[in-house]
């Protein structure tokens, strides 16, 4: 909901708090404030000039950036995607089949059966939707504020 009326005092407060650029002002007051400013520009000249001087110094501030390896370290602590959980499953199956190492030929038939089953399982898994469509990852996109991955990509492309 946007406010359609405003006062000199309020416009001065907006400039004082958020700076000279109306893009920094609260969205629900922006339109009314811009209209008021356009109607009475002389009243706000001094405040705008003072705010612009400070804004230009903020613009000159070099934004620091995190180290290049931080993202990798954070991702290393993330929950594993589904494909890696399958690898864990394979390892567990392996441990069940050969708890004390290889037992040839006694365990060979069982191992072959197990491998066949696992191959079938992974083949069917590969025909499933891509990993980002797993339930866990949809939760992440939900947290990002998107319905699904496609919506996220659309917005990212619009931002560029």
């Amino acid at each position, binding site marked *: 909901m946007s406010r359609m009326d405003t006062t000199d005092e309020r416009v001065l407060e907006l400039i004082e708090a958020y700076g000279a650029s109306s893009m920094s002002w609260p969205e629900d007051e922006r339109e009314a404030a811009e209209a008021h400013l356009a109607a009475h520009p002389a009243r706000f000249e001094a405040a705008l000039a003072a705010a612009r001087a400070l804004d230009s*110094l903020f613009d*000159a501030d*070099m934004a620091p950036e*995190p180290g290049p390896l931080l*993202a990798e370290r954070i991702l290393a602590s993330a*929950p594993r*995607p589904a494909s890696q959980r399958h690898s864990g499953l394979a390892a567990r199956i392996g441990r069940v089949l050969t708890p004390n190492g290889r037992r040839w030929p006694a365990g060979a038939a069982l191992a072959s059966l197990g491998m066949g089953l696992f191959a079938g399982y992974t083949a069917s898994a590969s025909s499933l939707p891509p990993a980002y469509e797993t339930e866990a*990852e949809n939760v992440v996109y939900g*947290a990002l504020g998107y319905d699904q*991955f496609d919506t996220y990509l659309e917005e990212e492309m619009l931002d560029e």
Partner: protein
Amino acid sequence: MAQSALVNRHMPVVWRVAFRMLGDRQEAEDVTQETFLRAWKMLPDWEARAKFSTWACTVAINLCRDRMKKKAPVLMETLPEREAADLPPDQALHQKQAGTRIQALIDGLPERQKEALTLCAFEGLGNKDAAAAMQVSVEALESLLSRARRTLRQALSEGQQE
């Protein structure tokens, strides 16, 4: 891939907020990692009641406040060098000097004013998101921003007179 998107989109902001508050790259990294560790634990129960960016900034700010309580004030370390590649050398130098100057003045602000300015002026959060991240009302946020800007203008004005 989803986790990468989340990290790529929000990690730099979380780190910069922590760095501006703590003044130490390593501590900012620790806070950022802790924020995302909490995110990984919390995400399965995530409810769409808050933006992730706001939630992450809230967690990071609280972690920073905890750390600041435990230690004596420290001077901001020198900001990392980043060349203004497209500017002529004299303009790049002028911009660097202006950036260093304003950063020193911002470091001297009270913590809450610095938080408000960091979120709104430097990271571009809207007033409602910034207020939510700081756990204050929008009116309180506005008051903090006004006082911060007034203090900075005054300091700059005094600096010019000297």
